[in-house]
């Protein structure tokens, strides 16, 4: 007897809604077992992990902060991957964006007008695009594999950043520690109150708003425009795309500039908010985590928004579990890995159904 998946005639809408729930239930069960094995009360542990991050406006704000770069990058990566352009170097483009945007406060620290903010964000996008342009160029000109070049460029970007903050851009008053001057006023992102004090108060910074706008625009692009159709066709049926006269080269450029630009924006937003200066560590691997976000979001920009928030919960839940339960960071990471596995596996149920081969040929559904 063997378990196989069989393609459904069409994608199951029921499963599209049900699969995250199945995944969550499975994760809860597995998680409960893991926690029980570690000698913890499984229910309390699961509460700390999944519910507590949602129970205070502070931690909701933190969730949004954490989800912002993931959503910004993940939404654009999803579009690229749909079009079969494999940018996995978003982390490098994020770094490049942070560097470019920081040119303003480093060289013109006195400049403190609303224009500063706009310029920094624009430079961040340009930096990310410029760095994303390298693999795009190498792909189009030399057909060099973009997975490899974009990944290698991550290391290069990080070493450039390292060199800058330890050398020419170092804060003269900073005892030669590797960081630039601290960014202030218009060099940082403004925050807005989105919920009144009666039920909040809840503040979010400009970055989060930009992330939502970007996701909505990308969803519009993919769903309602010819460009979106073109990108989809290239992903699903590259040959058909060629016959339809769509330029592969242009698509590669478009995807890398788009995802590079948004990764750059995410980078400069981090520097202008949570970090507050340029320093060697500006991202805990957001560019890589966003790849998972893109797939969890089923390569859909709005999906990426949801996935980014879900992933942020799993990070912050892991953190609060460390504090509240004294479990190690490692347990949290293993748990996160398992959660991802379940979600990914259950997503297959949208397009496929289970089938046991051997005893009976009748399809057996949802035998998980």
């Amino acid at each position, binding site marked *: 007897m063997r378990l196989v*998946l*069989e393609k459904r005639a069409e994608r199951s809408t029921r499963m599209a809604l049900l699969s995250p729930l199945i995944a969550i239930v499975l994760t809860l069960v597995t998680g409960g077992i893991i926690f029980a094995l570690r000698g913890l009360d499984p229910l309390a542990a699961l509460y700390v992990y999944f519910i507590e991050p949602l129970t205070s406006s502070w931690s909701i704000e933190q969730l949004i902060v954490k989800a912002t770069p993931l959503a910004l990058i993940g939404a654009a990566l999803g579009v690229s991957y749909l079009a079969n352009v494999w940018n996995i170097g978003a982390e490098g483009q994020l770094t490049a964006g942070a560097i470019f945007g920081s040119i303003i406060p480093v060289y013109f620290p006195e400049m403190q007008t609303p224009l500063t903010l706009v310029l920094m964000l624009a430079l961040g996008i340009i930096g990310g695009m410029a760095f994303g342009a390298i693999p795009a160029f190498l792909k189009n000109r030399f057909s060099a594999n973009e997975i490899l070049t974009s990944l290698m460029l991550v290391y290069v970007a990080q070493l450039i950043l390292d060199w800058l903050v330890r050398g020419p851009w170092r804060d003269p008053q900073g005892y030669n520690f590797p960081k630039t001057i601290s960014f202030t006023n218009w060099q940082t992102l403004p925050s807005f109150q989105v919920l009144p004090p009666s039920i909040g108060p809840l503040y979010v910074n400009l970055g989060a708003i930009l992330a939502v706008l970007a996701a909505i625009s990308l969803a519009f692009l993919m769903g309602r425009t010819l460009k979106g159709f073109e990108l989809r066709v290239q992903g699903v049926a590259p040959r058909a795309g060629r016959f339809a006269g769509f330029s592969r080269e242009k698509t590669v450029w478009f995807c890398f500039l788009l995802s590079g630009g948004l990764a750059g924006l995410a980078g400069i937003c981090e520097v202008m908010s949570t970090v507050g200066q340029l320093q060697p560590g500006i991202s805990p691997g957001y560019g890589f985590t966003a790849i998972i976000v893109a797939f969890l979001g089923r390569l859909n920009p709005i999906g990426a928004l949801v996935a980014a928030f879900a992933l942020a919960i799993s990070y912050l839940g892991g953190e609060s579990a460390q504090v509240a339960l004294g479990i190690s960071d490692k347990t949290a990471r293993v748990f996160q*890995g398992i959660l991802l596995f379940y979600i990914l596996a259950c997503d297959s149920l949208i397009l*496929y159904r289970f089938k046991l081969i051997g005893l009976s040929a009748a399809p057996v559904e949802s035998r998980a």
Partner: protein
Amino acid sequence: MNDQLLSIILTIITASTPLLLASIGELVVERSGVLNLGVEGMMAVGAVCGFGAALTTGSPLIGILAAIAAGVLLSLLFGFLTLTMISNQVATGLALTLLGLGLAGLIGESFVGQPGVKLQNLDIPVLSAIPFIGPILFGQDLLVYVSLAIVAGVSYVLFRTKTGLIIRAVGDSHQSAHALGYSVIGVRYLAVMFGGGCAGLAGGYLSLAYTPQWVENMTSGRGWIALALVVFASWLPWRLAIGAYLFGTITILGFSLQAIGIGIPSQLLSSLPYIVTILALVVISGNRALTRANTPACLGQPFVPDR
């Protein structure tokens, strides 16, 4: 001067071997049409299991076996998800890395701060005493020879045997392979397990031969480099060996230049291996026919039989 050159060459060999071991496994996986980005995670688990087994039993050979077994087990998890459950390979691979690194940390909690058991160099008598050539050719540890033997074996099997033909067929056109009666999923499972074993072995090399100890994150991104090397080699085993050694050579030469005391920023020297890899790739990719001929056409695509 000869001594210096000798020590540089020996250092390059040990620096390159884990990269070669991990990437040759991934090469076979990708040739069968599967992209497993979880090499780093499998390496970490291989490293900690190899270390632990060697420490408990006192035998580095058992350590090596344990490292391989651990890598295979983790790759089976990946195989189940991507092959049976048809989950997305890229995302599953990344999640595997996350899981592997966390798992390795958990398993290794009690091994921190303990000196390990070192896999000794073979030092073949008489031959290894030959000046210069002796230590290079006959004085390495077992796994250096194993890594080269695997490369030779993979090269032979892939291009000279029917098994290789099947693996490549599965990777290039899984529907046709299926139509011919081959079990696409079965072949891919075996390839994924081979890749897992090699990654585990590479991890074991780190914790048993390279630096006999266990610390968290000791793989330090080598799994990612292994992945890049496979593409760099355009899925050709011997070119992979050249790539791995090239990468090792540039890293070590960077250190040597620093020690000589020339005033180049160390960040530039540290980024050299990556830049050179990109440049080399550009040069190689210029030859489009060759690249295209060797890229597995079904790489990363899930297989569901047409009915």
